[in-house]
């Protein structure tokens, strides 16, 4: 954070360093059902992020003592490939990845209905092939599509997008440069129909007004993402499965 930079994050016309307007997301494409072996899967490109989500389950749980006799258990691993970032990352899970795995799991748990699957596990694997700013949001977006693709019962989809503060302005969908040199980054996940926020984090400083604006901006982004998720699921069946 706070790395010195000589790029202009926001020019006088309100154009950001990657050419976007302040209320514009990066390009997002999602494809459902891309892995043959997994029960459900999705691939997302969200700006420079390239992430595969794979779901296995509900299935037998190992080790057995993790089983819950009343409900199924959702497990989640967010994992970056060694080549996904400019400096090669050690393949072993870092503290950051373990924490992100947990917040992603907790952002999805409110949506999945696991009561009908006692003593089982649903394993969600998020493999980051290439990382850019906002990879946890992109991972959640792919995860939600993969869970729906696997036929896991869900109360709602979960759609995620970040907002942030750059040059004292609230902007939608913070990219890597803005994350490094900007003033705040706030990832948000939303259940769009139930209008429940299932993830919110913040790095940086915002006034109360800015905080509200930032949340509103992120929610608009989440709703845009939701439409893309829905089209991805629909496209899978329109193309003959």
């Amino acid at each position, binding site marked *: 954070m706070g790395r010195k930079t000589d790029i202009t994050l926001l020019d006088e016309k309100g154009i950001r360093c990657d050419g976007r307007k302040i209320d514009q997301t990066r390009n997002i494409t999602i494809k459902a059902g891309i892995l043959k072996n997994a029960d459900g899967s999705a691939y997302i490109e969200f700006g420079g992020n390239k992430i595969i989500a794979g779901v296995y389950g509900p299935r*037998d749980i190992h080790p057995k003592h993790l089983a819950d006799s009343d409900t199924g258990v959702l497990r989640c691993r967010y994992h970056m490939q060694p080549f996904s970032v400019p400096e090669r990352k050690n393949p072993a899970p870092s503290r950051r990845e373990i924490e992100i795995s947990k917040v992603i799991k907790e952002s999805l748990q409110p949506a999945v*209905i696991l009561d009908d699957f006692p003593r089982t596990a649903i394993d969600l694997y998020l493999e980051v092939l290439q990382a850019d700013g906002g990879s946890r949001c992109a991972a959640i977006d792919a995860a939600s599509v993969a869970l*729906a693709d*696997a*036929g896991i*019962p869900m*109360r*709602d989809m979960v759609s995620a997008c970040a907002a942030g503060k750059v040059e004292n302005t609230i902007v939608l969908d913070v990219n890597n440069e803005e994350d490094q040199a900007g003033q705040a980054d706030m990832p948000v996940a939303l259940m769009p129909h139930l209008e429940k926020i299932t993830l919110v984090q913040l790095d940086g400083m915002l006034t109360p007004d800015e905080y509200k604006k930032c949340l509103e901006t992120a929610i608009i982004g989440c709703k845009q993402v939701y439409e893309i998720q829905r089209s991805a*699921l629909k496209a899978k069946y329109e193309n003959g499965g």
Partner: protein
Amino acid sequence: MMEITKRKFVTPGEVIATGPLRTENNVYRDGDKIISTCVGISEIFENSVRVMALSGIYMPRIDDAVIGKVQSTSLMFWELDINSCYVGILRADEVFGRDYSASSNDLSSKLRKGDLILARIANFDRSRDPLLTIKSRGLGKIESGELIKISPMTIPRLIGRQGATIQTIESNTNARIKIGQNGWVVVSCEDSSGLLKAIKVIKMIDSQSHVPDLMERVKSLLESEGE
């Protein structure tokens, strides 16, 4: 008779209807709204609402016929992979009768790892793995044929109304088709072109299960010569 008034592609969270309708499969109620829990096709009847899921795993139900694969043997029972989140249990006395003795009978002499059986679910509840039985006509070890794995959600479409679809396939190909509700299907046929054709039709049904004119597609694929 209940009439379908609307069929629509839906995703989880989508509101399908509002009002005092009965909620059937794959929907839940939130206040006045009835909401889908899965990717599927919504159907609104005169007084009820449901969604036909397009994907998902097999959940055992008592009396379902399933095809299972032996994955391990112990002293008293076999464990079978039934393409579900639970393993199927087949007790030794199902095969050896009431005189079964762990010291004189060897389970693997009757069923080996990897063998397929057609069985019925005799018992299942939230706290126990499904118990299988093979004590009925037509059940037991499957001696020949090719295993095809399709989505369990597709099985009702493969069978068709009163078995119409499956009978059409069998009579046009001379294939014999054993169907497990768990999405596993074994096809056997004396002549290889009939076998290939039957498999092709089953796979087509699996990938097109959500289209409305499925029966016509089945017929035209069966009538097409060779490739």
